């Protein structure tokens, strides 16, 4: 399956097109999506840890559409980047570690969203999820960035 993915027309175009609108733009969109996704998540985490605690939690609901946009952009661009070198990524341990960290980070959004929708921002449980979210995103971004150096 991995090698078939690499031979699809789309993957070949991504790998061989010299245009800056091909691979470079996909990579840059992936970076922008990352900034939206991680940045917006962190802002919410900071609020849950007590920064700007006078702001009602309901005011932070705008975070979720922003996070969704970032997530969709990065899933789409991530899949494109993946199929370009599917045989390399699909069999690489560092890549699987990164994907696990991303999955863990996204998973922390689920209980956090539930807390925000309930308007319940106090207690050690919320703080635990906020800290877990900050750390998981940090680890995911770091792992993603290090792929460029581990996979050469």
């Amino acid at each position: 399956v991995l090698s078939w993915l690499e031979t699809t027309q789309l993957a070949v175009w991504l790998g061989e097109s010299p245009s800056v609108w091909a691979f470079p733009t996909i990579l840059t969109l992936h970076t922008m999506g990352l900034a939206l996704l991680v940045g917006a998540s962190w802002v919410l985490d900071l609020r849950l840890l007590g920064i700007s605690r006078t702001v009602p939690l309901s005011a932070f609901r705008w975070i979720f559409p922003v996070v969704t946009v970032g997530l969709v952009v990065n899933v789409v661009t991530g899949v494109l980047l993946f199929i370009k070198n599917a045989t390399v990524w699909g069999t690489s341990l560092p890549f699987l570690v990164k994907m696990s960290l991303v999955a863990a980070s996204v998973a922390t959004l689920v209980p956090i969203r539930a807390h925000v929708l309930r308007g319940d921002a106090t207690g050690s449980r919320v703080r635990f999820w906020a800290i877990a979210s900050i750390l998981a995103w940090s680890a995911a971004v770091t792992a993603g960035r290090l792929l460029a150096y581990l996979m050469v």
Partner: protein
Amino acid sequence: MNLAHLHLVMNHVPTVGSVAALGLLLLGFVRRNDHLKHAGLELLFVIAVLTLPVYVSGVAAHRELEDRSEISDDAVRVHHDAALIGFTVTELAGFVAWVALWQSRRRGRQAPGLVAAATVLLVVALAVMGRAANLGGGIRHPEIVAADAAAPAGEPDRFMTSAISEIAVNSRWAWPAAEAVHFLGFSLSIGVLLAVNLRILGAMRQIPFADVHRLLPWGMLGFGANLITGMFFFVGQPGQYTENPPFYWKIVFLMIAGANFLYLTVFGKPWRQADGSDARFDAGAADKAMAIASIAAWLAVLYAGRMLPFLGNAF
């Protein structure tokens, strides 16, 4: 006009500007006038932002002079080392000045400790930058350099900038680690700036602007982390950047982002005290334009930065 020329045009900004900022601050202390101190802090932050292109264009000038036999490479390197220290202290002073401005906007009065710390750092910055400027003048002006003060020849690795470059090129982990921090830094900055600017554009209208504004130092933290890691890349591998047009675009957009930090901290209109009086604050057209410009500038910084290898020749 090339970048060496730009360096000659701008290189007096850090020293002359610092004298002016220091004058305002000292006058503010003597007259016990907080407005003067405030103006001094604002000017200091502007100088810190402007010092970035001064330093970057200086490194570009350095590379253009490398092949000229009539220029002493040692003299340039000594100047570059001094300038890097001056740049660092100036940025630190600008950072403390910004924190003092933010704090005074938030509390409605200045924190004397922060203002004093910014002033002390400014004095140090002025001394170090003055030395750098003096050494820089000596590169092309033999008439002002004493004969016995000619820069001694020596091994390149006794220079600080060469040592940083050595680490950047040879260490297995330094560059990747700095890249990882750089990515975390921009995520933090963009997340916070997005929250603040979306509030100006009308999201979260029911909450006081002051409370969103509380997040801003976290954005500045990311900005600072990225200035440090970014300068590590730049000093480590200047050739990747000085001949790379997107890099200069990135610097321009970074300065817009820096101006936005100052705008959000200094101007009173979009922002009143934390007593809830701005709870229904509706931004004017200028505020909204600034908010859109800031978001656009951050995306442009990301675009130019990520596209450096593709539009230009980095890496």
